[in-house]
């Protein structure tokens, strides 16, 4: 009997680890799903006179992508967003989060912009309102301005197909 004790202790540990591993999943169910998207009005990068507010998009289903020029994962998803901007009709807005070095305009110039507008959230307050804990994060917002989906981490073609497309179809976009 005695010789099984180490194994038993280990089994208990493993059970706790397994629980702990999935306790803090990156995919936090956002409290905003089904709630109105927090309102804001921000200047738009590269267009001196223009401001952007979620209210501008009323009546449309749209996607808001939170990104930053200093964020490497965002660079990884950039070509995916470029392709999506070409191939499907849903407009993508790119919230430029905490861009302290003011690099967004130059970067989009160089690599192209998948966005219809790039609101400039310099101090990160809007991001905080949306519960952003890191970039990139992406939201689907419907015709009535209700948040329908939140995705944490970069988008690749698979996540778009499996996660975004069904939701967009359901919303009739």
């Amino acid at each position: 009997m005695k010789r099984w004790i180490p194994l038993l202790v280990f089994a208990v540990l493993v059970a706790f680890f397994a629980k702990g591993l999935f306790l803090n999943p990156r995919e936090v169910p956002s409290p905003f799903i089904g709630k109105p998207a927090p309102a804001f009005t921000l200047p738009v990068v590269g267009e001196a006179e223009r401001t952007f507010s979620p209210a501008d998009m009323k009546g449309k289903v749209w996607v808001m992508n939170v990104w930053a020029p200093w964020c490497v994962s965002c660079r990884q998803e950039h070509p995916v967003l470029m392709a999506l901007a070409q191939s499907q009709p849903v407009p993508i807005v790119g919230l430029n989060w905490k861009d302290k070095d003011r690099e967004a305009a130059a970067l989009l110039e160089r690599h192209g912009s998948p966005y219809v507008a790039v609101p400039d959230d310099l101090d990160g307050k809007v991001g905080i309102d949306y519960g952003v804990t890191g970039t990139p994060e992406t939201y689907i917002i419907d015709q009535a301005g209700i948040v329908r989906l939140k995705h944490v981490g970069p988008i690749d073609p698979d996540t778009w197909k499996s996660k975004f497309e069904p939701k967009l179809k359901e919303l009739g976009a």
Partner: protein
Amino acid sequence: MKSRHKKLIAIGLGVAGLGIIVALVLNAFQDNLVFFYTPTQVAAGEAPEGRAFRIGGLVEMESVRREADGLTVRFLVTDTAQSIPVVYKGILPDLFKEGKGVVAEGKIADGGVFAATQVLAKHDENYMPPEAAHAVEQAQKAQATLAK
């Protein structure tokens, strides 16, 4: 001494030693476990009085004030629903910034101010301390339920 007696004494000593260690551990746990509360919980009076605990959240924008002595700092820690005033005397960590995640350890002092003995920020600029993220998340969940 017979070997059976020897065995009994050995077992006795082993049990006594184990007992001492368990007592040490329990005693140390009693005194040194630090519980974590969100600003909302603290505002609701759920946090213990006279015992050290941790709060976490974001440093509220434009809330950091320095006193004349230069080393005492006052700021608000918020989980986006409630804010708790914190006072700390000492040097803040490098990554302490307004709008960033923070965890402070200390006690509730007079006037409901949280007197921190230690302020922690993470080593990585773009990473929020899990406790701080947890606090913000909880508050947002609560707000979402209220809005229903």
